[in-house]
């Protein structure tokens, strides 16, 4: 069995990666179109409240370096599966914004089920704009089977 307490102590809450993104108008429009959302706030640049669709931020930062620290231990058996993504919006994201994505492991926990013990690793991306204002938090859950 994996030592959860030790893993948590070593990894949870420590920033390990940063990446910068400049938000383009076309990518904001393309995202709204792909969602089928015709609300002018997300699809019309002339709208005074034009901004990125709330789930747009989920497209950014999905890289291996941003997800997992380079020296993070290999855990469990086999491949992991996607445990879902949650997005919390703190402020608007608009074309021209320069976002900083800061990565951390937010939580590591285990649970047991029909198929045995599963380890949950919560990868968190904290997004800030050019004024250092938090604009979004994105949590991605990775699930791994571990030996009982």
């Amino acid at each position, binding site marked *: *069995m994996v030592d959860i307490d030790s893993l948590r102590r070593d990894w949870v809450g420590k920033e390990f990666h940063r990446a910068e993104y400049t938000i383009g108008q076309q990518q904001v429009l393309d995202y709204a179109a792909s969602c089928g959302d015709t609300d002018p706030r997300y699809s019309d640049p002339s709208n005074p409240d034009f901004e990125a669709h709330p789930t747009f931020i989920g497209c950014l930062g999905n890289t291996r370096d941003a997800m997992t620290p380079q020296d993070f231990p290999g855990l469990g058996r086999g491949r992991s599966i996607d445990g879902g993504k949650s997005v919390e919006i703190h402020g608007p994201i608009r074309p021209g914004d320069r976002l900083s994505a800061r990565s951390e492991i937010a939580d590591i*926990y285990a649970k047991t089920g029909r*198929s045995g013990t599963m380890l949950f690793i919560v990868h968190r991306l904290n997004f800030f704009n050019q004024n250092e204002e938090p604009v979004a938090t994105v949590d991605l859950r990775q699930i791994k089977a571990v030996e009982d």
Partner: protein
Amino acid sequence: MILDLHTHSVRSDDGRAKVDNYCQWIRKKELPLDGFVLTEHRQYDDTSDYRDLEDHYGLLILKASEVETDYGHVLVFGVNEDLTNAFDFARVDNHIGDVLSAARRCGAVAAPCHPGRPNVGLFAHYERKGRIEGVDLVEIYNGGSRPGEDEISEAEAQRFGYRGFGGSDSHIVSRIGYAATEFDEPVANIDDLVSALRGGRCHARTFR
């Protein structure tokens, strides 16, 4: 009086149901429930206050916990500060003997849930590791059981002389009430529930 003794809300990491929506569903579908117990995974929620919902919908909403042990998952009714300090609710490797004895010592009731389920059910562990002392009540009807699992739970509970109760184990709104427990007398609060469970003044019901 019928209560669903095993439900999860969005406070559980895999729960997708808001408590308000459970209440709406029970009333809209005219389910034969008088209330339900929230049994969040690996934690005890001592902060949420559902009294307004209880008043609005005329339902009893109680709080308990589902903890994980070396003999599978266990529901704990009547959680108090003494009990939350007695063992770590967040761990998945609690010794069931510690959980059962701590519950008894702190005035609570601990009862294995879905005991017929592979890996996380009591009776699967009995097969591998033998019987343990201190169990007298198990969830014989679980709304999340696959075909055959409740049958194992019921038969094995009878064989070992355990009393049974029911709960839906719902994680989404539409599953609440799939299984429940009928009480012989009114239950108004968690103390009444613990007393009725301990005294065996209830029986399991399934509505699947």
